[in-house]
């Protein structure tokens, strides 16, 4: 065994026999240094030498996927892990339904599959880039560690897509893998592919909202790809989903803790009116209406990620048995969608109307509906925190047509309540719908780094329990 082989198998935890895969090894030899370089320049700013208490997945077994320990992030062991292969798995949907799943890329679908991988892959490093300055304003060591955990796992998700590209797509795949590192979030010349991934993450509330809403889009996409007839992709996505669930936990609990802090502070100060913004803000907590506006923003940006409600691409991907539906195998229909329809909300003669569209082309709409349900469950849990604190306020998901850039509602101004407004009226009301510059400035004032053990910034409540059951004053990040 050569030195290369030894070092690669320890360096890169994997269950794909990496050390005997000449082709992927050769590709990785080129890509790996570029990746580390990217991490150091575009990863968490100012914390490259810090020792962070991180979870590393070293195998897909229950015991192996969560190994905790201190590690400097550039030394993190990004692994290539696929969920175990299911014996005799059959393609669950589309034109090839019932056939054996593919272990190799069918030539016919090479271009389509590559596009799917690249679109998914592009989102993974993007959020790392978006979140790189958050460390400077972390509300606690616990939260600092959490954002880093999310970051390294997004890095691993990039690895997962890059592995598939390098393993199955030859030279084109290697070039795409390189491009994934070349595009940068918000870059003028080479931006990330999807809009939401070129937006800034200016503060921690945005980060939590992003993890709640945008990572959830990631979850839905992964869920559909986990059904794929191309088995290596399905297995990869299934394992990524375990990590994605954690990201959504960080988002949901982060926002929840902010709500908690605001409500209990209001109670203590005897403020009943959640809309008495001025008074509430004087207490250095974020008022609930501003939190709602942040939710409005991130929710609408994330809805755009589902693409057009009626989409031939989505139909092609499904029909080619490459990308299925959420919980495809649990659904009871023909899994081909040849003759069925699905209701799509459209703008018909100026009115919002449900129109039956061929189910095959309405797949984006369907996945978006599943996403909306999933979001609503999280919102209900936030409202429970509000209610438990005796505050009268209810968080609501805005209308799906609100603030959209893509799809049916791209060119129409719809309020969060779902009324169609004149463009002028919408502009006037804008600051009631979305965070204003003032809101942003106020939040920015609150964002001050807190790195003392066991301490939390005043605008956020501590978590109920620590990571890996550590005590409240655990040193999650050892600053150098």
């Amino acid at each position: 065994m050569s030195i290369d082989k030894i070092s690669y198998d320890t360096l890169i935890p994997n269950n794909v026999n990496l050390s005997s895969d000449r082709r992927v090894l050769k590709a990785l030899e080129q890509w790996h240094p570029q990746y580390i370089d990217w991490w150091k320049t575009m990863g968490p700013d100012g914390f490259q030498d810090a020792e962070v208490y991180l979870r590393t997945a070293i195998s897909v077994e229950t015991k192996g996927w969560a190994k905790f320990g201190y590690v400097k992030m550039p030394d993190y062991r990004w692994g290539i892990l696929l969920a175990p292969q299911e014996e005799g798995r059959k393609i669950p949907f589309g034109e090839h339904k019932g056939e054996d799943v593919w272990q190799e890329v069918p030539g016919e679908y090479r271009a389509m599959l590559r596009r799917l991988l690249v679109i998914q892959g592009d989102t993974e490093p993007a959020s790392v880039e978006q979140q790189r300055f958050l460390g400077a304003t972390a509300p606690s060591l616990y939260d600092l560690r959490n954002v880093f955990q999310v970051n390294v796992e997004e890095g691993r998700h990039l690895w997962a897509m890059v592995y598939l590209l390098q393993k199955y797509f030859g030279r084109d795949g290697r070039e795409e893998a390189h491009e994934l590192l070349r595009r940068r979030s918000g870059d003028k010349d080479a931006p990330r592919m999807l809009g939401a991934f070129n937006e800034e993450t200016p503060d921690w509330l945005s980060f939590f909202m992003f993890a709640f809403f945008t990572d959830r889009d990631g979850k839905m996409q992964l869920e559909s790809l986990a059904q794929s007839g191309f088995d290596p992709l399905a297995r990869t996505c299934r394992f990524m989903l375990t990590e994605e669930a954690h990201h959504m936990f960080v988002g949901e609990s982060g926002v929840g803790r902010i709500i908690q802090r605001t409500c209990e502070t209001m109670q203590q100060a005897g403020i009943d009116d959640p809309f008495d913004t001025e008074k509430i803000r004087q207490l250095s907590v974020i008022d609930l209406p501003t939190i709602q506006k942040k939710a409005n923003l991130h929710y609408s940006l994330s809805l755009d990620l589902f693409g057009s409600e009626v989409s031939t691409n989505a139909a092609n991907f499904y029909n080619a048995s490459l990308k299925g539906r959420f919980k495809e195998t649990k659904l009871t229909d023909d899994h081909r969608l040849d003759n069925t329809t699905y209701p799509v909300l459209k703008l018909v003669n100026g009115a919002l109307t449900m129109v039956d569209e061929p189910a095959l082309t309405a797949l984006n709409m369907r996945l978006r509906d599943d996403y909306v349900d999933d979001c609503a469950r999280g919102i209900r849990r936030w409202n429970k925190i509000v209610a438990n604190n005796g505050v009268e306020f209810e968080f609501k998901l805005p209308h799906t047509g609100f603030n959209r850039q893509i799809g049916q509602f791209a060119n129409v101004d719809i309020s969060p309540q779902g009324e169609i407004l004149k463009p002028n009226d919408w502009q006037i009301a804008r600051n009631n719908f979305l965070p204003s510059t003032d809101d942003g400035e106020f939040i920015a004032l609150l964002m001050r780094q807190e790195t003392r053990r066991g301490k939390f910034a005043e605008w956020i409540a501590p978590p109920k329990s620590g990571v890996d059951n550590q005590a409240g004053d655990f040193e999650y990040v050892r600053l150098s």
Partner: protein
Amino acid sequence: MKPIDFRTNPESYHHWRLEIDADVARLIMDVSENDGLFSGYELKLNSYDLGVDIELYDAIQRLRFEHPEIKVVILESGKDQVFCAGANIRMLASANHVHKVNFCKFTNETRNAMEDATEHSGQVYITAIKGTCAGGGYELALATGYIILADDGSSSVALPEVPLLAVLPGTGGLTRITDKRKVRRDLADVFCTTEEGIKGQRAKDWRLVDEIVPLSQFDDCVSAKTRQLCDNRSDSSDQQGITLNPIGREISDSGITYSTLHIAVDRNNKVATFIIDGPTDYADLSLESLNQSGDQFWLLCLTRELDDAILHLRLNEPELGTLVFKSMGSIAAVAHYDAFIQNNLDNHLVREMVLYWKRTMKRLDLTSRSLITLIEQGSCFAGFLAELVFGADRAYMLEGQHEDDEREPAALKISQSNFDLFPMSNGISRLETRFHSDTERLKPVQKTIGLALEAEQCETLGLVTFIYDDMDWDEEIRIFLEERASFSPDSMVGLEANLRFSGPETMETKIFGRLTAWQNWIFQRPNAVGEDGALKRYGTGKKGVFDPQRV
């Protein structure tokens, strides 16, 4: 169904007689009514089907290789009253589209072969017409260098396709009356819409024929013209012909085996892989050994087998959409063969081999299949054989060596012959066509003549599409072939035909690229082939019913 066999010889002809008299040959068309290739029609009035053309093609080939002493070939009819009525209409009406298109293509190629012989082999074809000469019959005459028409008040030339059948004189007719015979376009319009055709003086005045002759003087005039043409030709009586023996081949489910060529068939991916068995040495390459070997000389053998294989696949294997070319042998040996032919172009047999390779490469260009060439370790694409690389829709080359293969890395050798000897139908070489006559790109290529070029150089020079190393090779090729098979065969044909023939227009490119394309479109339209279309109704006494919309 029994496969259509392109191999024949004069002893087996049903429809032609080949008579040799010193330096003049007569090709007498005497179609046997009941010997059509398929059942369901009779080849009346010297009308023809593919079988008739297969014999004509064989005769033209034999005249060049077996009878270098022949200077003039006279085409004439063996029947009274009729020269040739053209392609058999009932055959056309009943044949499926694939067959029809391939039949027309082969017919065109055969006519081009007559012009090629007239121009390059010193064998002038002339036509002596007594009786009706219509449709494909006149198109046949148009492909010869001189047309003599009997001026007897009934002998005529005609292109009645439009008025009679609602199709076109599509096997070269329209292109040759204008571009070759320079008939004025308005007169051509009249001619092509006049069912009964044109006779006598008017035929001559309109340039439809070269000479009109009273019946009584007909034979004398033909002889006189023949003598005159022979006298203009240099003496070639010292040149020895060789015999073209039957091509041996074995067809099985998995492929076809010839002596210098094996074709492996993969029906799953619809691929036929041609593996050319190249020479391993060149020790006794000389004119003596060439004459001794005759048709067993490697290059001639390969060309004949390749030609037969292409035709076989075209007509009998319409679903094998991708042809992959590989070669095995010594690249140095092939380069020596290439030098040998370049140095001996004044030898009759060498010249004919070069011309035959040229025509065969053209036949490949015109084959509506994806052409893919793979250059691997042990392959021998040099000189003329490298035409298969430059003529391919894509060429892939292995970079470096396979892990378990000690042989030298794959190489490619260019020769001056790639620039001079094998023009495409557009009149320029494949290399020139490839680089759009851009000297900036051609010069560096020309500088590498004689060098063994490895993959990276070939990629830099633009000679191959992609290079892959051992690790990528198998997977990339597999995926590519699968992808190719997944595209619409029609769009592939259209795409490839459009990309293959850049550069100048010639009579040939017009015939194949324009005229046949139109003809094949019309052959798909209800006005011709619908239930009430003219072609379908022909012979019922009823006229075709047309949709009046112009498209």
